[in-house]
């Protein structure tokens, strides 16, 4: 048979043990507040360091972007210069063609002049014959024709000089024609090889320019992506700092619980102290507990903020400017 204990002392013992438990829980809740606070502060410090690193990275990226811009400008100018050279090289065959045409026109002109020297020779010969005939006629005229004979002799000498000069001009033009024609031949031979090289150089310059533009675009895109990620990082850091404020929201929530629990424990302590000696006082305890509950719920209502707390009722405005 088990021993029966007096129900009143048993309830009193239970109540005393309950109050001890409550004190322990309250101490733990206080510890939770302290722990979350120190953890929130550590998070803020870490997030701030993260932000400082992001800022350093952003500064570095800005510098890199500026340097890349300057370098790109220089390369672009160099490539543009190479492009001008390429364009000039591309026009070179046409220029050579034009120069050759001019030289060929010169050869045609030399040939024409050469033909004219034949006419000069013919005129000289005719002048020479005319001078001989004039000298014969002057001889027949005797003393009267002596002066005319001097003129005829002079004319014959001039015809001889003209003929000699015509021969010299003819030789000179023939040499000039030979030099120009030889020059054309060698230019045409060299041009064929040079044009092949020109074509290769122009293609290389085009390729270089395209490669540079591709590379430049590639790095610009990469840099833009990195900068975007860095901006996102800074934004998220700002959001994280805001989220840490939940520690204060939770702290205040726990503080309200502790206040209600403290009042409840005081009421229970009163009950324990009465030990059935004051029935009226004991009867007031349930009313006190009801009042504590009402006050607690009213306080909670004043601090509604989360979706969980505002379900089924209109959520208060999170931000309101007056």
């Amino acid at each position: 048979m088990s021993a029966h204990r007096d129900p009143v002392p048993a309830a009193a013992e239970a109540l005393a043990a309950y109050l001890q438990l409550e004190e322990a829980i309250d101490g733990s809740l206080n510890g939770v507040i302290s722990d979350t606070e120190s953890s929130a502060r550590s998070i803020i410090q870490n997030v701030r360091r993260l932000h400082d690193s992001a800022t350093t990275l952003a500064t570095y990226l800005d510098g890199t972007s500026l340097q890349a811009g300057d370098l790109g400008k220089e390369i672009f100018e160099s490539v543009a210069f190479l492009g001008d050279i390429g364009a000039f090289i591309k026009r070179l065959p046409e220029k050579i063609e034009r120069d050759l045409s001019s030289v060929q026109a010169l050869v045609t002109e030399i040939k024409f002049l050469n033909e004219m020297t034949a006419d000069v020779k013919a005129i000289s010969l005719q002048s020479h014959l005319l001078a001989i005939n004039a000298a014969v006629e002057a001889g027949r005229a005797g003393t009267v024709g002596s002066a005319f004979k001097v003129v005829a002799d002079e004319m014959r000498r001039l015809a001889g000089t003209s003929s000699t000069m015509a021969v010299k001009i003819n030789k000179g033009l023939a040499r000039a024609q030979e030099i120009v024609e030889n020059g054309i031949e060698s230019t045409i031979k060299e041009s064929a090889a040079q044009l092949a090289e020109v074509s290769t150089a122009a293609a290389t310059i085009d390729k270089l320019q395209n490669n540079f533009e591709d590379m430049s675009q590639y790095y610009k895109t990469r840099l833009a992506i990195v900068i975007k990620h860095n901006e996102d990082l800074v934004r998220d850091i700002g959001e994280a700092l805001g989220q840490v404020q939940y520690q204060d929201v939770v702290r205040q929530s726990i503080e309200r619980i502790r206040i209600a629990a403290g009042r409840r424990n005081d009421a229970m302590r009163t009950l324990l102290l009465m030990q059935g000696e004051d029935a009226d006082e004991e009867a007031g305890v349930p009313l006190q507990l009801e009042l504590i509950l009402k006050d607690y719920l009213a306080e909670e209502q004043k601090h509604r903020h989360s979706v969980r707390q505002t379900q089924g009722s209109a959520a208060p405005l999170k931000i309101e400017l007056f």
Partner: protein
Amino acid sequence: MAKTIMIVDDSSTMLMSLRNSLEIAGFKVLEANDGSVALKTLQGGAKPDLIITDINMPNMGGIEFIGKARALAGFRFIPILALTTESQQGKRDEAKKLGATGWLLKPVSGTDLNKIIKQVLPGA
């Protein structure tokens, strides 16, 4: 020149969180851990461009602080924002009557905070 913002809160976590958010956004920050300390700082010559205050604090709460700060010479038009867990309309109306510029519920994100600051502090 960087604008100065005074933050008033009895929670060290809140002060630290707000200080870092605001410094990152380029503001100078003054701190006070209740309304009474904040009021003394203002009376001592501090001239912040904006005040952000908690409502429930020991010694002097935010509502009383707003009323007393508004009564100080040179603080009639400086924007004062309440940042609190209090959501009841009665407290909002009281703060508004005493000259608060706006009411923000904790927690407030960095993006929202900067948006509001830009609205009440043009050019910030």
